[in-house]
């Protein structure tokens, strides 16, 4: 596998509405996405995972660091090269009711990206649209219908077809099934699994649902207030999460009674007044053992000695860092 997309020390900051304060929604994130891989980005609301997704497709600007595709910084590309890069990374949003223009028919929804990227003529576009409908399990008879005539699951199929129209290599899926009923969620997840095999796609799942991560992904990155605190294989993550925050997330998802002892207090800090040192330390049950280091010094994300092993940003693991 080769690296398709690489984030180097990426930072995205927002200014508080009507106020002087700044918020680093994404704060120095470095991650690599391999061709054909499925990675999950998990974290609570406000962790920056959706902002990161939007930065990857150019919907928000980053302030520092870089987004590299095939090793080239996208900020340094010509507009023509940038258009070609955009084509390779597409996004599917959570809410298929909000993300589809109600005035456009199925044909128009799917023809639009082809027209913008000047792909094909009217005839070949039509053939491409039929192929897309077939690929996502919609009927070619749905061609002239409008989004409001579809169920939530069908709309999400249409949103997926639109994202696939440009034959991307990486699909960013921002909570793609959380607005759907349980019985429909499985259909969409199975569809995504088949599409990945069929087209050799890489996925980046933005989600808070750890069961979905386990079903769909091979790698997982955990975000906490803009920073990645752990990155590992899904197998390692569920067997032995390393960061104390990851441990709490896994225990909470399993509804394990020990979850209560893994987070000190239920309340997250204000994003405008983040704790010093390790952002997690006031909620961390292990910070007291480690002394003042956790409050003083921000741990960096570092790979542990094991081969292709997990990376973690926590002073508990300082001794095991790979040099």
């Amino acid at each position: 596998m080769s690296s398709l997309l690489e984030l180097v020390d990426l930072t995205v900051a927002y200014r508080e509405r009507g106020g002087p304060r700044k918020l680093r929604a994404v704060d120095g994130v470095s991650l690599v996405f391999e061709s054909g891989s499925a990675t999950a980005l998990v974290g609570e609301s406000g962790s920056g995972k959706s902002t990161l997704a939007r930065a990857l497709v150019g919907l928000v600007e980053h302030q520092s660091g870089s987004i590299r595709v095939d090793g080239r910084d996208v900020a340094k590309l010509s507009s023509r090269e940038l258009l070609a890069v955009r084509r390779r990374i597409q996004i599917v949003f959570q809410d298929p009711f909000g993300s589809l223009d109600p005035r456009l028919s199925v044909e128009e929804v799917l023809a639009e990206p082809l027209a913008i990227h000047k792909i094909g003529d009217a005839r070949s576009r039509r053939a491409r649209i039929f192929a897309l409908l077939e690929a996502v399990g919609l009927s070619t008879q749905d061609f002239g219908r409008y989004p409001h005539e579809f169920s939530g699951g069908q709309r999400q199929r249409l949103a997926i077809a639109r994202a696939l129209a440009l034959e991307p290599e990486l699909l960013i899926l921002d909570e793609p099934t959380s607005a759907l009923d349980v019985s429909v969620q499985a259909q969409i997840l199975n569809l995504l699994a088949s599409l990945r095999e069929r087209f050799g796609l890489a996925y980046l799942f933005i989600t808070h649902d750890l069961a979905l991560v386990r079903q769909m992904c091979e790698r997982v990155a955990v975000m906490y207030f803009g920073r990645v605190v752990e990155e590992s294989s899904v197998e390692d993550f569920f067997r032995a999460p390393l960061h104390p925050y990851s441990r709490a997330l896994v225990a909470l998802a399993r509804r394990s009674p020990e979850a209560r002892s893994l987070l000190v207090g239920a309340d997250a800090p204000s994003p405008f007044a983040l704790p010093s040192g390790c952002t997690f330390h006031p909620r961390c049950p292990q910070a007291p053992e480690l002394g003042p280091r956790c409050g003083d010094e921000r741990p960096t994300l570092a790979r542990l000695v094991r081969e292709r092993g997990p990376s973690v940003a926590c002073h508990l693991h300082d001794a095991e860092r790979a040099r």
Partner: protein
Amino acid sequence: MSLLEVTNLRVRYDTPRGPVWAVDQVSFKLDAGETVALVGESGSGKSTTALAILGLVAFSGGTVETGEIWFGGKNLLALREDELRAVRASEIALVFQDATAALNPFLTIGLQIAEVLEVHRGLSRREALVAAGKALGDVGIAEPEARLASFPHELSGGQRQRALIAMSLIAKPKVVIADEPTTALDPALALLVLDLLRREREQNGAGVLLVSHDLELVASEAKRVHVMYAGRVAESADADELFAAPWHPYTAALWRARPRLDGERPKRLAAVAGAPVDPAALPTGCAFHPRCEFVVERCRRERPDLSGLLRAEGAMSLRSGRRSACFEKERLALPREEASTP
């Protein structure tokens, strides 16, 4: 006698596409100190049932056609609006999901909580504020007296959720309706909300009606579960029995379709075919039949009633009140006697 008893509830909405019965022949009981769950997907009627108990169906544009809702010796459906208002909030409370939307941004937390006691318990402002401060402390808010003067936006998300629960529960309601109480919440806050609901049940003997689409949540929180589909109860059972061996193909399909945190990881999920039911265009016969893998000819013609098993083993079900609205329930309930099903 049960704390709350709903019998034969039927709710109609008149829509441009004709009448829709969002709730149809729904009956269940809730006892003090227990959690009962209504579980189902969109269009199942679970939230409309909750609205009916709160007497709010008319405000949502619907009509209660038939049924009775007995609480404290009174049929709530026969009460006048002013009588109902006294019951609501003081004896039957709703725990909202979204604290930011449910709290008034222009009033301090203290005044919002105190108002419940002033209106429903006749306390003075001063007494009510003292009680409100204590209630905030009870839900784990630090320096509760100081927080009384805070406006909702000055609190963190977690504190707002705590304050909202304190407000919902301050009048010591006998019935707490929790409609998707944790869906939009981060896991740590969800756990807090569940702990507070459990405490209300265990310490104050409240009955909790949990309305949710989340099977895992229901399995861990509820004693008794009613699975709803297309406005009707598809299956009623104790939670442990229900998820160990469902008696309705819909329950079985939903339970199998979810991705899991532990155990086997299948290459593909066991998806339920088809789309959720459209209440305005119900299929004939059993509403689930177009999606059902156990379908037989009769399912297309007749609607099955909710009932126990007919065979000898069914005597157990009569005792536990376990029931399923499926003609083929024996194939699910007693699979050893049958050739294996597809």
